[in-house]
């Protein structure tokens, strides 16, 4: 299993906490909305990704466990 992150762009309100908490995964665009360059979360960042998802004020970060394709 590996973790995948999606941002719900309808819910996202550009609070920017995700970038503060996890700059390895998120960066901001010119209007303060997060860009996710790689949806797959590296193993060592999994717990931080869950923290970021819980911290998002609009709960716009969706974390999904996906079966790893061998």
């Amino acid at each position, binding site marked *: 299993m590996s973790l995948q992150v999606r941002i719900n762009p309808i819910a*996202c309100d550009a609070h920017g906490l995700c970038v503060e908490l996890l700059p390895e995964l998120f960066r901001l665009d010119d209007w303060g909305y997060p860009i996710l360059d790689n949806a797959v979360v590296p193993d060592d960042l999994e717990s931080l990704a869950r923290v970021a998802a819980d911290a998002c004020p609009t709960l716009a970060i969706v974390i999904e466990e996906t079966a790893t394709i061998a």
Partner: protein
Amino acid sequence: MSAASPAARPDGGRLPRLLAGIEPDGSPAGLLAHQRAYGPMPRIPAERLFDEVARSGLRGRGGADFPTARKLQAVASRRNVGAVVVNGSETEPASRKDRLLMATLPHLVLDGAQTAAEAVGAREVIVKLSIDALRPADALERALAERTDRLPVSLVEGAAGYVAGEESAVINYLGGGPAIPRFVPPRPYERGYRNRPTLLQNPETLAQLALIARFGASWFRELGSDADPGTALTTMAGAVAEPGVYEMAFGTPLRDLLVAAGGPTEPIRAVLVGGYFGTWTTWAETATMRLSRADLAEHGAALGSGVLIALGESACGLHESARLARYLADQSAGQCGPCVHGLNAMAESFAALVDGVAHRGERDRLLRWASEIRGRGACHHPNGAIRLITSALDKFGPELERHARERCSAPPADLPGLRPPAGGRRVPR
């Protein structure tokens, strides 16, 4: 035809065949005329329908180009299937094919919808139309009064607007919400109308399906190529003598599409393939291309909902694209930051480049935005707008230098849906 001969069927190898039953005066074909043209609708078992549709190679004609058989089976494999939704919104401003189909051959669309609905185990059929589609609504109502269908059919008219026809927006609207897209997945085939698995199909797709159910996959494949079987309805617009809807076989040279539409009214500079979400192809490219997915893909294009807009030499590709970019930015549903802010900024930036008033590095910034914004909306609206802008830069980019030096005097091409507002306000379509 003798009484013993099989029921009527259009010649599979000749055009028009989907549109073979159109009445000469364009009035809606009644049930008798419909059955004279296409024969009665057989009831066929679901598995056979899926098999015929799979072998026919039919793909969705609403723009997504998804294999229809796979979509049918994906819905049929689920429990508690809700509705089949005929998505007749047709919110692409230049497109007219679905309106034409529903207004002239309503029974064909309804045949396809009933057949698909029975096959996937749906309980009802809903036809979603845009509020301005008066003739289609009238024709469908009259057709429904003549039919004895097994599943109930309802007509729902709703908001126009570019994104209102997007499938999750249609589901939202039918559920009593605003006609704006949802965050997907779950997609409608998983959770759609009333939270049940829902099959959404374009009217043309269902009309084609109605013919495949009648005459089989081999009949369908008599026209077109192995890779792109069958025919497609195309809406020809722009600098052609007879703009309108034409049924064409896949594999036809694009030049012949222009000829079918009365020929160009002036030398052609470029063709916008696939509608306002589409891709510009120069005349030199267009002249060698066929109506095939491979030919179009080679030039970064796709048929989309079947719209081709010819731009004459007298018009300016940059200015027209800037107008379209502004239109598309304004059509954002206003839900997603990257779309709301990003498309607006891109349209502004592109207009500055086209007007020759951009700062140094503007083009690079525009291209960076394109790569950063793409894929970050809940629906594909930003992707489509970005495709148009990058394609315009790609094909007309060399002219930017001249625009920076001197004022461009080309008159507006009067593209459908972009006419200047008459009373100071654009009337919502």
